């Protein structure tokens, strides 16, 4: 669905940020992009909604070249939630913040009302709808940002570091939310350094370093590859280390509860 074909990107000052990227992100999948700081993760996803256009090569969504469409046209199908919520929030109330995107795209009143009610309930923001989003806590601001993008029901959702500043409870809510989007046949792309969160999410993983894709695979194959993890500057999930230390390498559990069951069985 999303296809990067020999994509390279140079910043205006000449710095090379992406180097010959070839990547297919399938429809209705969850994909995580991981790598050290400055690897080119955010630069890569900014090509999907047209904020950046490739210096060479092509990026296409459903075989449509992104260079032929404006950011606004692409954003109708590609929602992007930025890392810093403070870079996005400006309206006087949470309600107006959520309506901002819906109004920009010119949807009819019925659709706007329906979507607004859907996201305000989904993200449990009803009690905040008439207060300024700037007065909310970090986690609540993040929820407003998510709601304001999901409001227009984009087919593809890009989340840039969604777990930054979130407590464990919020991370669990986010995890359920991403899985819910996946079951609603959305394509979700997550950029994250939060490996523990990604282990629970079990997405397809794209590893990047110095503007290049190093390897693509499922979570288990990527996170178990010690050399690869070192190369992209990532520490594998603790659960893998523990179970490898216990001599169990073939079946690593996803959750704490599952881990406890396996360890109890080992003791017995």
């Amino acid at each position, binding site marked *: 669905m999303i296809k990067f074909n020999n994509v390279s990107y140079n910043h205006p000052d000449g710095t090379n940020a992406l180097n010959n990227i070839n990547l297919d992100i399938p429809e209705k999948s969850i994909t995580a992009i991981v790598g050290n700081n400055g690897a080119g993760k955010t630069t890569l996803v900014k090509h999907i909604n047209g904020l950046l256009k490739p210096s060479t090569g092509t990026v296409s969504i459903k075989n449509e070249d992104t260079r032929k469409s404006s950011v606004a046209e692409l954003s109708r199908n590609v929602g992007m939630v930025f890392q810093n919520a403070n870079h996005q929030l400006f309206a006087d109330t949470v309600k107006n913040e959520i309506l901002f*995107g819906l109004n920009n795209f010119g949807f009819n009143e019925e659709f706007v009302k329906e979507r607004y009610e859907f996201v305000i309930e989904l993200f449990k923001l009803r009690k905040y709808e008439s207060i300024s989003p700037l007065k909310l806590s970090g986690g609540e601001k993040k929820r407003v940002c998510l709601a304001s*993008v999901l409001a227009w029901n984009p087919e593809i959702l890009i989340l840039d570091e969604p777990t930054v500043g979130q407590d464990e409870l919020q991370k669990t809510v986010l995890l359920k939310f991403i899985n819910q989007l996946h079951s609603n046949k959305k394509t979700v792309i997550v950029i994250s350094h939060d490996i523990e969160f990604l282990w629970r999410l079990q997405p397809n993983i794209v590893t990047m370093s110095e503007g290049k894709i190093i390897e693509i695979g499922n979570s288990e194959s990527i996170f178990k590859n010690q050399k690869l993890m070192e190369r992209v500057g990532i520490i594998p999930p603790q659960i893998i280390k523990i179970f490898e230390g216990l001599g169990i390498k073939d079946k690593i559990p996803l959750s704490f509860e599952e881990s406890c069951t396996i360890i109890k069985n080992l003791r017995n």
Partner: protein
Amino acid sequence: MQFIANGFIYRKSNSIIHKLDPRVKLLISIQLFTLALLVSDLYNLLIIFTAITIFSLLGKITRRLLRTMIFATGFSVLILIINYFAGYSLLYSIQIALRFISIVCSTSLFFLVTSPDELEYVLRWFRLPRDLVFAFVTSVRFVPVILMDTLQIMDAQKSRGLELEKGNPIARIKKFVPILVPLIINEVIRSGELAEAMESRGYGISKNPTSLYSLKLVNFDIIVISITMISFISVILLGY
């Protein structure tokens, strides 16, 4: 926007102009600025532009200085038109417009080759109040950061369907509200955090804080001062 801002932002380089004592760089900039204010005929303006070009070539900042010129040209065309329609001759209007470009370029020249740290040393050398120096230097230092914030906010709002390029002029101005509000709020929050961080590290405790670095003129600085001073006085005496 980034294109214009890059015409005023310092970048590290090993050029002989960058290596000059910051006081010498300031002196050159003041000399060019003063000449641009004093002279008005095309011949002398040409001398100023030649001097600016020489310094930009030696400082390896020609490309970025050109951006400053492009930025200043927009305003200078407006100045030219206003002067011409106000009844001044075309030649005089052109001279005024060129004078404006040379003033902007001579100021930009200094900021392009002087780091915020060097700027701080110069201002402290003038014995200006430390708080004032700190506030000024910090504002200069934060220009690239604010620019980066602006670009990120623009990206975030464009991703929600905001089209800054569409609509009539009033509609376009209104479209900047979603960019200006988060930008101002972010910067207010940042300045508060910065103040707290500075105080937490002892800012303001001592009336006479020490400094690891001190400004020292080397032989090359003195040669440059001599050449530029002679040139400056010559232009004043012969041309003005």
